[in-house]
């Protein structure tokens, strides 16, 4: 994020008198980074094709219907857009966009989780001691 800002500032000519040594604060928009935005787009696609996928999948996986129909269903599923696959989504941290080490019920990374827990911001979370 900082790099992006710096690059944009470089484009501005120095004759305008804008100082390039501005203190960079964390920009808090809805998305932390582009990976998060991409993940969000994939999820939208997943929701769009969810019903179709479910029906085709049931046809695929059952053993009652004839094989030919099953094959046909399989072909149809492959034709659907890639981003409609739910496996392409990642459970990123909502605050830092960390892809790994997330505490799923809270949807945040373990580092953020620990920080919030220490400051008593997580309901029902206490230091383990036994």
């Amino acid at each position, binding site marked *: 994020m900082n790099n992006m800002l710096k690059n944009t500032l470089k484009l501005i000519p120095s004759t305008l008198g804008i100082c390039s040594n501005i203190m960079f604060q964390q920009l808090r928009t809805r998305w932390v980074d582009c990976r998060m935005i991409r993940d969000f787009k994939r999820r939208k696609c997943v929701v769009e094709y969810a*019903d*179709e996928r*479910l*029906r085709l999948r*049931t*046809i695929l996986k*059952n053993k*009652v*219907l*004839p094989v*030919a*129909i099953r094959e*046909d269903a399989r072909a149809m599923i492959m034709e659907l857009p890639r981003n409609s696959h739910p496996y392409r989504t990642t459970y990123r941290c909502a605050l830092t966009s960390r892809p790994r080490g997330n505490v799923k019920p809270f949807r945040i990374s373990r580092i953020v989780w620990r920080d919030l827990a220490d400051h008593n911001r997580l309901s029902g979370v206490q230091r383990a001691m036994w």
Partner: protein
Amino acid sequence: MQSITSARLCNQFRSMCRFPGRNRSQIVRYFSDDDSQKNKEAEVKVKKDTPIEEKSEQKASAALKLSNLLQAIIQDDLTMKSEKENLKLSTAKNKKGSFKKVVTAAEYQLGKEMADAIVGVSKELEGDKEQIKADLIDKVASMKAPVAEHILEAPVKEQDAAPKEPVNFSDLIGGMTVEKIAKARPQVKTDTQYSRAGRVRGNIKDKVDDEPILSSRRRRFAPDEPSVRAGLEESVPLGIFSDPASLRKAEPLLPIWEQMHQRDLQLAVMYPPSNIYEEMISWTNQGKLWKFPIDNEQGWEREQNVPFSEHIFLDKHLQDWCPKKGPVRHFMELVCIGLSKNPHFTVEEKKEHILGYKNYFAGKSQLLKELGAV
């Protein structure tokens, strides 16, 4: 030499106690046996007289001394009094609201300036001054000019004017006495005021009430009071708006402003809970707590009116299009069983699923015929 009898001693003590202002020398003199200060003539007399005569002489001298003492005491008292008069002792100052302002009826109604003006006018004009005054008061009072608070709160003086004909409004009021003392502010705070809710209420009040700067600004730019009273329904309407009722339904130009205004109004009326019971009531209303009797489907607003039979008996959706036998039927029956056991879908969603299958199989009808499934 005079002997000090016990009785005399007692008397001396009593006198000393009663009049503590006696100086030490005088006290010493009365008690002492020393004759040097005393009158030598009396001494000589005492020496010459017989014992009986001595006693009488003693009594006389005692009486003389007592009288002298009393005189001295009186003088002292007088001096004390004069001294007292000269002293300036501090007294309690008058408190602000302790005295009542006495105000005439006219002032009570109209304000001091107006009353003074009326008095001046009545003096200048010829005729019955009281009548003029009363008429003026009537006229001005009908305009309903505002009166200052301190005058309203003050008591009204009884007017001595005799009743005149016609009976005047001011006379009627003059006959009455209004005793209003300035309300004492509550010094002792109740429990509710001390509590957190009380403090929050206080804060809300402070915020809702205008700041002194704003109120002073308002006074400066306040419009003058109307000289003529406007009546809304006296004159004939202009007829500009054909359907005035429809105007009320018009949407506001600033919807978010309206929403915030509504929110402000709600907050002005709402108070934070004063005890745990009120808090729990507010939680229940918000849906955070279970309502009694417990309803498992509390919060499921989507499908409250839908009966469970519609969720379970889905065969009716297969009636139209599905073949009675074959793998397709078998498959669709499995689908219906699965959907009937699923609590997460709504009835509409289940119907849509079944329709989706119908469409799919309708698209594959040729393939199915070839396979012999249909």
